[in-house]
């Protein structure tokens, strides 16, 4: 199917990239065809640029709108929320209507966070190029797609031309070999990788995740892993398609059917990196050594096993690192050397495109079942579909009986654009992806962790190793006995 741009062994990334090259310049810039373009409320800058040029959308059949960043999670009625926020949602409605785009709006039974909806609806497929004006677009790479976030100028460019100029980044393979210990999840794997290579450790690289521990992950776990590629500085993260991928895609609402599906599977299975393909960098982690992880600072690389202590900047030789650690501990209100399990939390948030899929909710519910939360918290499923399924399984009752709030789907407290905020100075155990200063609201303090760990923090009121709380319980994860 594809014309080989280069002879010799190629990586998964090369195969997908080469197939999308419309034209290549001598300086290495390639004009890439874009197969899926996902838009959310933040796209208004790009639509303004389109308007200024009087341009139309090149491929409306490959372009989809989703209301997620600003949507309220406690009502679906725009009339009762902050008018400035409602206006952001209305702008997307107007812009998608003016160009005849399919919009997954607030009341759509398939609405949800863009990176949850794409896979769930079968819009995300292996071998595609997928872009969205959101850095966590890397999530979709779990299917073996090249998926990356773009800025507003690039969004406008894709709307008008269905293409983007890109230079091939370097290729990096991260292998995680062996089996994860019980109570250790894809989120712990991802945070361990970031703590190992740094928040800019994969800058300029396209990541391929491989190794037996990655292969063993469900699609949900793979989505979590690829989601955090951007927090390691990578432009995208990918996993080669296999039976797990194909089984997930089959019969999704927008997935190809019949002969098209069979043809697709044939193409997708040929995408895996050739055995002797070369990578510019390779990092190998031992899955057995990965423990449940939490962050203590203001960058995702400020992460450590829950059994560890906060670092002490006075004992660091690297002055720039020591300065960062001092800043971070000061902002977070943590003493140097303080045991992480000593840190009391004020609330929990379970949600976001990182950890709001059905498996995430099952893992949190496994810890919470029959227990009460000591702190308030919000559980926001990744989509209306996830919400319905969780309710069919009775998970919502576990959350509400524990004292947590069960709300509708959206980005919610991950970024606080809809008004779901962590109050100033408060500390939140969060299943999201960014612990940046003020990310969850001005003055908020965020600790990143897996859903089971966030649930455990809710139960005890402080950062907690959830393994004893999970003993003898099943998380309901696919493949678990």
């Amino acid at each position: 199917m594809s014309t080989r741009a280069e002879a010799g062994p190629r990586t998964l990334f090369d195969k997908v990239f080469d197939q999308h090259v419309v034209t290549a310049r001598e300086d290495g810039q390639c004009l890439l065809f874009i197969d899926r373009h996902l838009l959310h409320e933040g796209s208004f800058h790009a639509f303004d640029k389109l308007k200024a040029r009087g341009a139309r959308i090149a491929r409306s059949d490959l372009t989809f709108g989703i209301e997620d960043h600003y949507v309220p999670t406690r009502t679906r009625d725009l009339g009762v929320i902050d008018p400035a926020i409602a206006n952001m949602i209305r702008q997307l409605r107007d812009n998608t209507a003016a160009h005849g785009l399919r919009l997954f709006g607030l009341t759509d039974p398939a609405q949800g966070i863009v990176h949850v909806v794409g896979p769930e609806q079968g819009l995300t497929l292996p071998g595609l190029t997928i872009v969205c004006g959101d850095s966590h677009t890397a999530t979709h790479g779990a299917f073996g797609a090249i998926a990356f976030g773009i800025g507003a100028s690039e969004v406008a460019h894709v709307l008008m031309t269905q293409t983007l100029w890109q230079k091939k980044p370097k290729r990096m393979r991260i292998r995680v070999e062996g089996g994860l210990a019980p109570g250790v999840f894809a989120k712990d794997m991802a945070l361990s990788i970031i703590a190992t290579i740094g928040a800019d450790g994969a800058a300029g690289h396209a990541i391929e995740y491989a190794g037996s521990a990655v292969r063993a992950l469900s699609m949900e776990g793979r989505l979590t892993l690829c989601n955090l590629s951007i927090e390691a500085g990578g432009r995208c993260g990918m996993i080669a398609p296999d039976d797990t991928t194909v089984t997930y895609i089959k019969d999704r609402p927008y997935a190809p059917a019949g002969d098209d599906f069979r043809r697709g599977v044939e193409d997708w299975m040929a995408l895996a990196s050739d055995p002797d393909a070369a990578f510019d960098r390779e990092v190998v982690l031992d899955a057995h050594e990965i423990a449940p992880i939490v962050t203590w600072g203001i960058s995702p690389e400020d992460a450590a096993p829950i059994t560890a202590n906060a670092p002490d900047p006075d004992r660091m030789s690297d002055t720039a690192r020591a300065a960062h650690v001092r800043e971070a501990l000061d902002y977070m209100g943590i003493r140097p050397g303080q045991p992480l399990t000593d840190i009391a939390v004020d609330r929990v948030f379970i949600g976001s495109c990182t950890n709001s899929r059905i498996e995430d909710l099952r893992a949190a519910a496994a810890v919470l079942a029959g227990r009460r939360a000591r702190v308030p918290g919000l559980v926001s499923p990744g989509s209306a579909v996830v919400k319905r399924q969780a309710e069919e399984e009775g998970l919502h009752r576990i959350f509400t009986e524990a004292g947590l709030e069960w709300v509708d789907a959206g980005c919610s407290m991950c970024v606080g654009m809809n008004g779901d905020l962590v109050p100033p100075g408060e500390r939140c155990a969060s299943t999201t992806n960014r612990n940046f200063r003020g990310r969850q609201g001005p003055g908020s303090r965020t600790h990143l962790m897996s859903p089971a760990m966030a649930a455990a923090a809710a139960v005890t009121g402080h950062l907690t190793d959830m393994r004893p709380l999970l003993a003898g319980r099943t998380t309901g994860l696919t493949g678990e006995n």
Partner: protein
Amino acid sequence: MDAFKSLEAIACPLPLSGIDTDQLIPARFMKRSRADGYGDYLLHDLRFDDLGQPRPDCPLNAPRWQGARILVTRRNFGSGSSREAAVYALVDYGFACVIAPSFGDIFASNAINNGLLPATVSEEDCEALLAGLEDGDCIARVDLEACEIRAANLVIPFRIDPVWRTKLLNGWDDIDLTLSHAAAIEAFQAKDSIDRPWLVPRLRKS
């Protein structure tokens, strides 16, 4: 877009690493239209306290750095979200160049698309430059043709992707360039629709 060849201006040191896009422009400020300007939102929570008063310890508020058009800062600048508003805030404030040891990938490409130069220097040169600006003269000269920074008696080389350099030097806009390839894009799609019959999503009848 205006071409960028060289710039002589006040350079403000901001000795912090990992200034992410959530700090460059907090999410709550992103509802404004670009026409209304984003400059007053730049690094809002670092510059202003809870009551909206300027924080005296923030270099951007110091009299000697007023009118700065060059920002010097530590590694991993602009990591985080793809929000182009982070670049709008820098540009609308008046910055035309940021000097740092590393940048978030998406931030850097957004910067180029708005004529803002992300100049990558070594960690050592960055530390020397930060110290030099703190103590001495605060004017720096950035030369994009020579890829060189002169400030505080230092001459420091910087790196930038050659393609981006050409784009900035010429002030090119991608869209016009791309539209000149319209025939190639057409031909690609015609062939691709045969090669990948499964590409276009269609909702199944249930």
